[in-house]
C-alpha cells in the first residue's frame, strides 16, 4: 500500500482493520487513544509510532469533529499522514449496544475471576476486551 500523503495543511488519515480499509480521507487533525494516554496529531508532526489501546478516535474534517471507536493496534504518524492498524473499528451507527453491554459484563466477570500475574498476556487480553466494550458504549453515549 502506498504511504498516504496529504497536502500541505492536511493529514491523510487511513484506518485499516482485518475487515478492510475503514477510513481513507484527508483531515485537519486526529486524536487517538495511545497506551500512554490520549494524544493528538496536527500537520507537521514529528515521525511517531505509538501503540493504541481500544478507545475513541476523533478527527476534524472541515471544522466538524467526527468520533469513531477503534480496537487495539498501532498508529504511525508523520508530517502529512496518520496510519492506523487496529483490530476493530466502529462508527456510532455500527454499535450494537446490547452486544457491547454483554461483552462488557463478560469481560468484567473474567477480570474478577482472573488470578494471574498483573500485566501478563491474558491480563492484557481481558483489559483489551474491557476497553473495547467501554469504547463502543462511550461512542454511543456521546
Amino acid at each position: 500500500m502506498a504511504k498516504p500523503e496529504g497536502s500541505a495543511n492536511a493529514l491523510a488519515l487511513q484506518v485499516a482493520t482485518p475487515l478492510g480499509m475503514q477510513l481513507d480521507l484527508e483531515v485537519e487533525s486526529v486524536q487517538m487513544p495511545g497506551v500512554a494516554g490520549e494524544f493528538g496529531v496536527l500537520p507537521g508532526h514529528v515521525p511517531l509510532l505509538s501503540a493504541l489501546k481500544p478507545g475513541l478516535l476523533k478527527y476534524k474534517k472541515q471544522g466538524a469533529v467526527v468520533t469513531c471507536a477503534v480496537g487495539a493496534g498501532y498508529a504511525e504518524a508523520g508530517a502529512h499522514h496518520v496510519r492506523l492498524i487496529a483490530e476493530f473499528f466502529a462508527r456510532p451507527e455500527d454499535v450494537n449496544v446490547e452486544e457491547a453491554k454483554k461483552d462488557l459484563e463478560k469481560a468484567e466477570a473474567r477480570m474478577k475471576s482472573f488470578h494471574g500475574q498483573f500485566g501478563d498476556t491474558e491480563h492484557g487480553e481481558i483489559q483489551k476486551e474491557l476497553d473495547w466494550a467501554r469504547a463502543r458504549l462511550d461512542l454511543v453515549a456521546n
Partner: protein
Amino acid sequence: MANLKAIRTRIASVKNTRKITRAMKLVAAARLRKAQENITRMRPYALATIDMITALAARAGEDEALHSLLARREPKNVMLVVLTSDRGLAGAFNSGISKAAFRKYQELVEAGMQVSVAVIGRKGGDYFRRRNVPITHTFSNVYETLSYKKASEIGDQIVIDYASHELDAVYICYNEFKSAITQKIVIEQLLPIEPSGRDSIAANPVDFVYEPSQQAILSTILPLYVNVELYRALLESVASEHGARMTAMDNATNNAVDMIAALTLQANRARQAAITTELMEIIGGAEALKG
C-alpha cells in the same frame, strides 16, 4: 463396431459424472466468492502492517537485545512452511505448490542447510511423506475453521522456534490469489524480517518517537507480523484453492459434455449399422424366396 448397449451404459455413466462435476463447480464458485471477499478485505490491513513493521525493523537494525525476531544468523536450520489443501480435485493446485516447495527444499539442502518442512493441509503432507522429507509440524483441520486465532497458533510456534535459535530462517510457500483462473506460486521469506526503506532512512535519519517505548512496541508488533503474514497467506491459499477447483471442475464438465456428444454419435452409428444389417438380411431373405 462397439456394442450398442455398452455405449449406452457409458453415456449414462458420463452423464452422472457431469452432474457431479457441475455440482462441485457450483459449490466451489460459491465458496470462492466468500474467500475472495475475505482476502480482499484483509489485504490493506496486512500490507499496512507489514509496511510499518519492515520500516520499523530497518530503524531498529539487527540488535537481538531489542527483540529476538530481529536477529539475523547464518542460515543453518531452515524451515519451509507449505500451504496446501485438505481436498484434491483442484487441478494442479496441490501438485504445483508441492513441486515448487520440493525444488526449494532440494536447493536449500544442496546449499548445506538443515531443512525441515511444516505442512498445512493434508495433500502436502502426503506428497512430502512419499518423498521421505522430514516433516516437523503438520497442522491439520486448519481450513475447516480458518480464523486469525488459528493462524496465530501456528505463528506462535514459529516465533518460539525462531527465538530459541532452533530456526535461523523461515520460508513460506503458498498460492497467491490472482483471479479464479490464475494463481501464482509464491515462496517468501517470513523470518528474519527483511527490513525495507533503508535508503529513505539514510536520507532522513530522524528516528520515530516511540510511545510507550521502542522495545515495548517491538515486543508486541513483531509477533503480530508473523501472524498477520501467515493469516494472509492462508486466506490467499483458500481463495486460490476454490478458484483452482472451480476451473478444474468447469473443464471436467466441458470434457464430459464433449464425451457425451462423441459417444452419442458412436451409439447412433452403431444403431444405424444394426438397422442396415437387419434390412440387408430381410431383403436378402425376400430375394431368396422370390428365386
